[in-house]
């Protein structure tokens, strides 16, 4: 079936653009980059057409990667219905964002570098979802982390961008540490890392009622997922990651990479099903992250920051769905979120592009006449994320909330309230940007065709994406949940209420927002400073680490032990012995000759005494 061709195309694009990109013209660079992703997308379609309806997973074995003792890890790709959804989302949305980037990056420095990294990202992301064992998945997992780092710090001449890249990378180390521990534990428990084998072994094991091995594995895996998918308390890197170019925010930090944690939990659902405690933790963390990030999003003034916190919040939703056992609902929301959040970011990018780099909502306003296509598409995306009936977000959010309602009503009410908050802050940004009077200085203009076409396609997907019923498609893997009317109506009402309040505050009575801000003084300050979590981390983790590194590791170990002890110490000892032996080296040839003679005589003498050759 040649599944390897799917990631191969972007990899080829990466190699070509990486090696020759600087010498090629911009149009050829973009042709290679976009063409490779388009080829990958077409090949995914061809493969899916061939294996449809994919009732049994289809796997490809290429070679044995690691063979040592009982450890045997193959380079295997597997494709089942879950992978199919992920492949379509990644290559489809990825293709649109690549096309969009041609227009967005047109005037930027490092054009070929951008597309090189973007193609490399596509390669690793496809490896991640195609992998048939944990270790190969980890390869993709780390690879996308690397690309995220490279692209967040794309404008590396700016200190904040370089810092944001470091932050993303370092915070993800924490998660990846948990992930690798989970891999070790999995191998200890199962003796294999292959998904198929683990799933058949675990099927015969009892469900753990108290915390035990499987709970440990799943919790550690969730630490990894929380790092990559920006869940509390490891979410701090994602808002900062907005320092990268906007297409990167759309592709990596909204649609694909940050959902890798969701995919991983869904892929290993057979483990989570046996660890109810871990499931509960996943649900609670997801719920808390959802409402926590949503409240921060209420007061952000940077349009990309608003959407970044919204992403964190929506990812929380997905984990909430996974945590209550509605895996297919989580994946459904992953897909619709990929559509409308990519659209939100690309729309924001279009606004930023049209305003020559302005990101502050306070300097926008009234843009609906200047950029009508961006206005309409962003409006559709906003309605979709609010769960407005008929739009894609409505169906997926409803699938999650129905399942939550069945499990625990209080979680449902918190989730529904979060939906209201989501609607409020998204429309706050929307109204601030497109209505009222223009408050900026640049002359706004609509974006070129290569940016508006992807916007329109994504808008279409955000409209109708909800009718592609992922839970039905995945019903062979995950049992279908029951559709309920009550949670559906409640969450939709909360969404509409949020929109209405935002309209009241920012359209009808603009002065209301200011007076609210004044009356909610301390709360507003707390939210504006993001609950001081970054400051807390700085004080409790960053500063101690820097202090210990500076005094103990740098001055003590490095300078004290390694430099003076080992490096110069060894040199001193060698020099000391050398000055002793140097006495022999008189430099006089005659002296040497005498030594040679004496040496030969000694050898002959010793041989004569002790040797066999008498």
């Amino acid at each position, binding site marked *: 079936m040649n599944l390897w061709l799917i990631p191969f195309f972007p990899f080829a694009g990466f190699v070509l653009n990486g090696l020759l990109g600087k010498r090629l013209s911009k149009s050829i660079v973009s042709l290679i980059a976009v063409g490779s992703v388009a080829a990958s997308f077409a090949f995914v379609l061809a493969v899916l057409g061939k294996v449809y309806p994919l009732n049994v997973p289809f796997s490809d074995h290429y070679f044995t990667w690691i063979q040592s003792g009982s450890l045997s890890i193959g380079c295997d790709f597997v494709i089942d219905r879950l992978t199919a959804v992920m492949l379509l989302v990644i290559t489809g949305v990825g293709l649109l964002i690549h096309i969009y980037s041609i227009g967005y990056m047109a005037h930027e420095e490092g054009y070929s570098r951008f597309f090189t990294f973007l193609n490399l990202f596509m390669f690793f992301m496809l490896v991640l979802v195609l992998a048939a064992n944990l270790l190969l998945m980890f390869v993709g997992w780390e690879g996308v982390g690397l690309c995220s780092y490279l692209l967040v710090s794309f404008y590396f001449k700016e200190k904040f961008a370089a810092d944001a890249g470091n932050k993303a990378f370092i915070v993800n180390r924490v998660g990846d540490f948990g992930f690798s521990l989970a891999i070790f534990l999995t191998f200890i428990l199962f003796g294999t890392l292959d998904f198929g084998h683990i799933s058949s072994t675990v099927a015969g094991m009892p469900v753990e009622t108290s915390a035990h091995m499987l709970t440990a594995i799943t919790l550690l895996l969730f630490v990894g997922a929380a790092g990559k998918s920006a869940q509390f308390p490891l979410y701090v890197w994602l808002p900062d990651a907005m320092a990268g170019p906007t297409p990167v925010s759309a592709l990596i930090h909204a649609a694909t990479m940050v959902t890798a944690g969701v995919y991983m939990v869904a892929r290993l659902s057979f483990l989570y099903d046996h660890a109810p405690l871990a499931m509960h933790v996943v649900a609670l963390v997801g719920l808390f992250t959802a409402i926590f990030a949503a409240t921060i999003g209420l007061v952000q003034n940077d349009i990309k920051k608003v959407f970044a916190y919204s992403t964190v919040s929506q990812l929380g939703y997905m984990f909430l769905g996974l945590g209550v056992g509605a895996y297919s609902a989580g994946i459904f929301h992953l897909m619709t979120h990929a559509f409308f959040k990519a659209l939100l970011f690309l729309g924001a990018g279009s606004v930023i592009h049209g305003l020559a780099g302005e990101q502050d909502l306070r300097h926008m306003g009234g843009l609906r006449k200047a950029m009508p296509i961006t206005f309409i598409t962003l409006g559709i995306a906003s309605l979709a994320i609010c769960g407005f009936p008929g739009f894609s977000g409505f169906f997926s959010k409803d699938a999650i909330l129905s399942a939550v309602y069945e499990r625990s009503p209080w979680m449902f009410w918190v989730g529904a309230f979060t939906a209201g908050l989501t609607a409020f802050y998204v429309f706050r940004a929307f109204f601030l940007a497109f209505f009222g009077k223009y408050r900026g200085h640049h002359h706004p203009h609509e974006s070129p065709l290569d940016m508006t076409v992807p916007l329109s396609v994504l808008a279409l997907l955000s409209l109708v994406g909800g009718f592609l019923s992922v839970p039905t498609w995945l019903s062979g893997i995950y049992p279908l949940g029951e559709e309920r009317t009550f949670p559906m109506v409640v969450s939709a009402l909360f969404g509409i209420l949020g929109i209405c309040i935002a309209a009241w505050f920012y359209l009808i009575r603009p002065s209301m927002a200011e007076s609210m801000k004044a009356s909610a003084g301390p709360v507003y300050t707390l939210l504006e400073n993001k609950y001081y979590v970054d400051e807390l981390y700085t004080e409790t983790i960053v500063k101690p680490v820097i202090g210990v590194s500076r005094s103990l590791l740098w001055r003590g170990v490095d300078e004290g032990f390694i430099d003076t002890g080992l490096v110069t110490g060894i040199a001193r000892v060698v020099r000391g012995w050398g000055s002793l032996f*140097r006495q022999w*080296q*008189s*430099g*006089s*040839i*005659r002296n040497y*000759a*005498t030594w040679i*003679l004496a040496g030969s005589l000694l050898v002959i003498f010793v041989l004569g005494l002790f040797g066999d050759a008498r």
Partner: protein
Amino acid sequence: MGHIPLSWYLILSAILFGTGIAGFVYRKSVITVFMSIELMLNAVNLSFVAFSYQLQRIDGHIYSFFVMVVAAAEAAVGLAIILTVFKNRGTLQIDEVDSMKL
């Protein structure tokens, strides 16, 4: 050659070798020292060949050929060194070429 006993060859070889050592250690000119080394090599060659004849075996001949090849190579390298030393220092007195120390 049968009437000349082996010991005579060995004595001659030893005398030549001793001469070589003496020249190697006591002479002052680099060229003479160099010639002394050749002398030692050839003294050894002589004893090889003598033994080879005495024992009626070919090994000694082969070894002496090896020694000749090495001696030829050594002569080429050695003379090149001597030429360079003379060019750089203007002397071939062995006691004056003693700067190979710190």
